């Protein structure tokens, strides 16, 4: 009886110490692996060039690059947006990333809509969802014009 209760205690103690070891090693390891998820990407204004150059643009595709720290690398990132000159110094810049699953949308002149090549999503000129599975409209990026230069905010 005494032997049995001793063995039960050892079984419990073994499981307890095993659990402690698992937690002591597991918590830092999981923190180490998932830490990038808690890192906020630095936002920055990116120069798209002279605003005059894009005057009267209507859903004009503009590709640009900028540098951002990517882990241990100062990487050059590429982006693509649609720029529209609304007039009165107002600009609309839409991200081309579909709000569904991240494919790049294309502006279609005939349909006056953004079409997604992946799952058939359609967005209207304001970026609102017209058809397909996206849960949200297209992202409208922050814009500013300073000293005649058009800037878009990268987040």
């Amino acid at each position, binding site marked *: 009886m005494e032997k049995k209760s001793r063995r039960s205690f050892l079984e419990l103690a*073994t499981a307890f110490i095993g659990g402690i070891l698992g937690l002591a090693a597991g918590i830092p*390891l999981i923190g180490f*692996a998932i830490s990038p998820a808690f890192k906020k990407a630095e936002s920055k204004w990116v120069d798209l060039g002279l605003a005059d150059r894009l005057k009267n643009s209507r859903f004009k595709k503009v590709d640009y690059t900028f540098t951002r720290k990517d*882990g*241990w690398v100062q990487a050059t990132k590429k982006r693509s947006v649609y720029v529209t000159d609304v007039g009165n110094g107002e600009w609309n810049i839409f991200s081309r990333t579909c709000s569904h699953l991240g494919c790049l949308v294309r502006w279609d002149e005939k349909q006056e809509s953004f079409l997604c090549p992946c799952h058939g999503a359609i967005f209207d000129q304001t970026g609102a969802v017209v058809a397909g599975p996206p849960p949200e409209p297209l992202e409208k990026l922050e814009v500013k014009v300073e000293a005649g230069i058009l800037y878009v905010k990268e987040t």
Partner: protein
Amino acid sequence: MEGRKDGRWEGWRVFVRERLPLEAVDAHLRKPLPKHINLLFSLGSLAMFLLMLQAVTGAFLAFYYSPSPEHAHNAVTYISTEVPFGAFVRGLHHWGASAMVIIVVLHLLRVVLYSSYKAPRELTWIFGVLLLLVVLGFGFTGYLLPWDEKAYWATVVGVEIASTAPGLGDFVAKVMRGGTEIGAVTLSRFYALHTIWLPWLAFGLVGVHLFFVRYYGSSGKPENTPEEMKTGKPFYPDQVFEDVVGMLILFVALAAVALFVPVPLEDVADPTNADYDPRPEWYFLFLFQLLKYFQGPFEIIGTFVIPTVGMLLLLFLPFLDRSERAVLWKRPIALTVTSVCVIGIVTLTILGGTSKKLETTEATVQETTQPAEQTQDAVTPETEAVEEGEEVFDFQLTEEEIENAVDVGTE
């Protein structure tokens, strides 16, 4: 309410027991060990624990590592300085490697102490020695990965040692490097060896080693009677409890070292840095020191003959030592050989670790990125090293000599 809970648990228990051979596993785990098992018999479990810890920490480090000369050093710096828990995880992996070598060697010495390698456990021993080689292989392939000075130069020397092997040495060295010099291909293949090939090999060898350990049972102490060999405490929970306590102590010690002793990371590898004194990790220092004693045509004795013969003797020890099974101090020849080997390796390690670094008064060389012909201009006979008694010629031609030369050419 309580009854319903019990019923649900019982249902799960029946479900699991019907599908998995838990009772057979349970009976196997509770098999009694020999009597008089002491703490030294936990060393194998501790080695297994460290292997798992190295595998897990290594797998996590791989999330941030990039095996290319352009990125490796920066990636390791990033892990150590910017990733949360990065310095700790790298510390566990780095110091864990050293702990692994110590524990595996102590485990081997325990087997020698009680002559546990004798029949019928010869194969258990052979697979254990192969595992020791794999552990050293992990060390050798692992320390190139940070791509710092130590990584680079230790690998240069290590690969050169392999190249001295007769016959295929040069070929083996080229295969190890992936070419004629250490670079991107070397780093890539060392990474593949360290993270894919050696782990698979290690777990395969551990599987076979453990199979033999369970099949023949623990060797116990030599003085155990046949009756005592099967009437000790059960493996689970008694021995497992002692093993996990040992693992906890080992982990706490490793964690403390990982927290308080930063893992060294030297400057990025520079193949032109002649001021650097290459030194291997401490567990290869004995070999580093040994190489100094064999010069000229005898070099191969230190680089190839002694390590190869030593390993072969170790591997086939059960077939060479034909004495009756007894504790080490009752086997005078084994005691002498073991003592000489241990004292020799420890002494060489200490000598290697404390050996003076080279002091030179070499003139500094101006770094230049100028084209070759301009650089050549800068080297004049006066600036070149000239041995005593050797004449220095001034090759500059006088205008008259040039004119004469042109005349000869046009004639």
